[in-house]
């Protein structure tokens, strides 16, 4: 029953892959940005965020992700979300996130997209 947020991350083919677990609320959004910033400060500008294990999000948590988009625009980086629940995909779509980020079914297809 636990939905407390945590995440892990790996660097693969020059991409920072962030995998989230649990509720992306205020705190969850901040943690994602913190993890991104650590990678970004090391020069990583290809970012994959895998939300497979986050079945619940709220708009406060997601609004933090706009900070990632801003920073990546400056460096011509790329952000791809993967494993989105249909309702979460719709949420991102309504917020206009896909004007600035992409989505893919899996991490593999996301990483493949990075070259495009």
């Amino acid at each position, binding site marked *: 029953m636990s939905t407390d947020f945590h995440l892990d991350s790996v660097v693969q083919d020059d991409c920072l892959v962030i995998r989230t677990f649990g509720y992306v609320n205020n705190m969850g959004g901040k943690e994602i940005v913190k993890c991104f910033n650590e990678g970004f400060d090391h020069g990583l500008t290809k970012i994959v965020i895998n939300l497979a294990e986050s079945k619940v999000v709220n708009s406060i948590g*997601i609004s933090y992700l706009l900070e990632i988009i801003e920073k990546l625009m400056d460096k011509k980086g790329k952000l791809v979300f993967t494993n989105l629940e249909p309702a979460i995909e719709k949420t991102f779509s309504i917020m206009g996130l896909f004007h600035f980020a992409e989505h893919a079914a899996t991490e593999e297809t996301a990483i493949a997209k990075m070259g495009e």
Partner: protein
Amino acid sequence: MSESVELKISLPKIPDIELVALEGLQRLASHLGISDDKIGEAKILATEAIINALEHAGVDELPVDIVFTMTKKRLIIFVQDYGKGFQPDSVEEPIIEKKLGTNKKRGWGLKLMRTMSDDITIESDEHGTKITLIKNLA
């Protein structure tokens, strides 16, 4: 005649307490045989209505009251707070291009509720706010 189930919850203002309501939605949906896909958007609606009441009402001692009424065809989400109220019409429409580069990145809840619901009613005055969301499930 289709079965209707009702769940009422009176939430204290503590972090992540909206998850109790989401567990409730899940149980009602399982009972009525409604798929996870169909209930997903209903969960977003409930979350946004509840976190607004928890955060913006401005009265920490008073609860946020919720009623879910679900049939196989339709869910009614009712969320009431006893806070300071607001004027929904004077809330600015958020646009992502305008948010980028500013410090005001929030402000998406009402837009999400308006776009994802099949009907929305907001009654708000100085005694509090009532929001009723309808989501078709069939």
